[in-house]
């Protein structure tokens, strides 16, 4: 019996759990007691072994054996770890008031992690606030810009049918279109100012007001002259007459004067073309390449008028390069003017509202996952 007990204790010392010892029939009372105590020790050891093993594996839901002195220091660790788990969950929920004051060096690391999270949260909050202010300001700017766009009722009353796509890259746009009814017809224009977003938006305000001013000064019958005057007025307004000027901003523009009485459309362009349909084909008027208002624009430049005799079947289009330059497709290349013209040929006989949705859909499909790179504007009209 002593031998069995010695073997059992030896195995315990080697970390193994022996089976309980069964006292022999002839053993005296002391020996029976020794067996019982040894068995209790084996049991306590087995419980402690299971508990510590589970704890070591990170299982904090393990059952804690009651009244087991072998594990009392681990019980403290177990409850600390459970508390730490709870604290970490609180931190994950956003409660950054948690501090750890046990576990020595770990506490320091944990607490400094909380501090840096607090710092991040403060920075994030400040960033969010700044962003929401900027966005609110941009949306307000957009409201102003929208009210600067032509009145669609006025356009509807004057034009047979029309559509426009005005799709800023960043809430406000560097693109603008312009419409004015006249006694004997109307003026329509598309402008593409340098930049997009806020700088582009500011440019459209200057460009739109300058155009109105020029129309007042030189009248509306000679689009090429209007472009010439606008070029000089913009250069003066932006102080871009000297080669040392700090800025070099301006715009591209296409302007059509429609004279209903004469049945004539006169177009002048600065970097923007006029497309029109005739007998099932799409034709284009290139206009001039000279841009308007830039420091590098030639102040003496004389733009060209192009006139077309109006036919009720004709559809007219002007667009900014945001559409034709947009990157997309299988090779990540620009949409291109040829594709745009081809598309117009396919759809020009549709009602204008239908053409608008086809164009929007086609360009969105071509763009795919690429970002919109520039403001996009297309105006289509029937006289």
């Amino acid at each position, binding site marked *: 019996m002593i031998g069995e007990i010695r073997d059992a204790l030896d195995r315990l010392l080697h970390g193994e759990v022996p089976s309980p010892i069964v006292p022999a029939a002839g053993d005296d009372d002391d020996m029976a007691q020794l067996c019982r105590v040894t068995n209790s020790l084996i049991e306590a050891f087995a419980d402690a072994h299971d508990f510590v093993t589970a704890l070591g594996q990170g299982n904090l839901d393990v059952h804690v054996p009651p009244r087991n002195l072998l594990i009392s220091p681990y019980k403290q660790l177990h409850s600390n770890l459970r508390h730490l788990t709870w604290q970490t969950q609180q931190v994950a929920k956003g409660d950054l008031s948690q501090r750890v004051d046990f576990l020595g060096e770990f506490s320091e690391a944990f607490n400094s992690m909380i501090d840096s999270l607090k710092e991040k949260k403060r920075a994030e909050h400040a960033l969010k606030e700044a962003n929401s202010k900027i966005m609110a300001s941009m949306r307000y700017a957009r409201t102003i810009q929208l009210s600067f766009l032509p009145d669609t009722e006025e356009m509807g009353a004057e034009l047979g049918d029309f559509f426009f796509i005005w799709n800023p890259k960043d809430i406000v746009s560097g693109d603008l279109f312009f419409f004015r009814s006249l006694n004997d017809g109307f003026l329509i224009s598309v402008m593409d100012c*340098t930049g997009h977003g806020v700088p582009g938006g500011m440019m459209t305000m200057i460009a739109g007001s300058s155009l109105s001013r020029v129309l007042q000064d030189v009248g509306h019958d000679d689009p090429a002259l209007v472009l010439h005057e606008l070029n000089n007025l913009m250069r003066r307004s932006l102080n871009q007459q000297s080669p040392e000027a700090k800025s070099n901003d301006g715009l591209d523009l296409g302007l059509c004067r429609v004279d209903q009485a004469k049945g004539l459309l006169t177009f002048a362009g600065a970097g923007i073309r006029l497309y029109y349909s005739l007998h099932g084909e799409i034709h284009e008027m290139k206009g001039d390449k000279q841009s308007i208002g830039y420091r590098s624009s030639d102040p003496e430049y004389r733009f060209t008028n192009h006139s077309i005799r109006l036919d009720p079947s004709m559809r007219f289009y002007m667009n900014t390069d945001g559409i034709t330059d947009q990157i997309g497709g299988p090779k990540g*290349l620009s949409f*291109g*003017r040829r594709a745009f013209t081809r598309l117009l040929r396919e759809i020009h006989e549709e009602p204008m509202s239908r053409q608008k949705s086809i164009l929007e859909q086609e360009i969105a499909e071509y763009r795919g996952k690429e970002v919109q*790179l520039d403001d996009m504007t297309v105006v289509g009209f029937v006289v």
Partner: protein
Amino acid sequence: MDNLIVEATKSSPWICFDAENRILEIKGKSYPENASEFFAPVFEWLKKYFASTQTAPTEVNLDIIYLNSSSSKAFLVLFDILEQAARNGHTVHVNWRYDEDDETALELGEEFMEDLEFVSFNLVKIQDR
């Protein structure tokens, strides 16, 4: 003279101006928020380069997929600097590389080419990019 190397970002091209080998390259898309700010050091470098270098040939390889309007204006300034250098006796070869399906890039190259007299400008069609 130090080389000028600017890594590409989502909105700006890769730039590698190698003074020693006399090869200047710009590649990618260009639509930075402030193009004149972005290109200012590029112009600065070019001016120094042509001021300090011999008139041996300089090769300029441009492989542009997209230029926003302010970047195109910046490219006009770039070509002005090249043209000026060529006028002053430097030999400048520009290779304008464009994808065979990219008519926009081709037209852009043709437009830049029109204004150049002293710079030799080659349109290089790239197949199977």
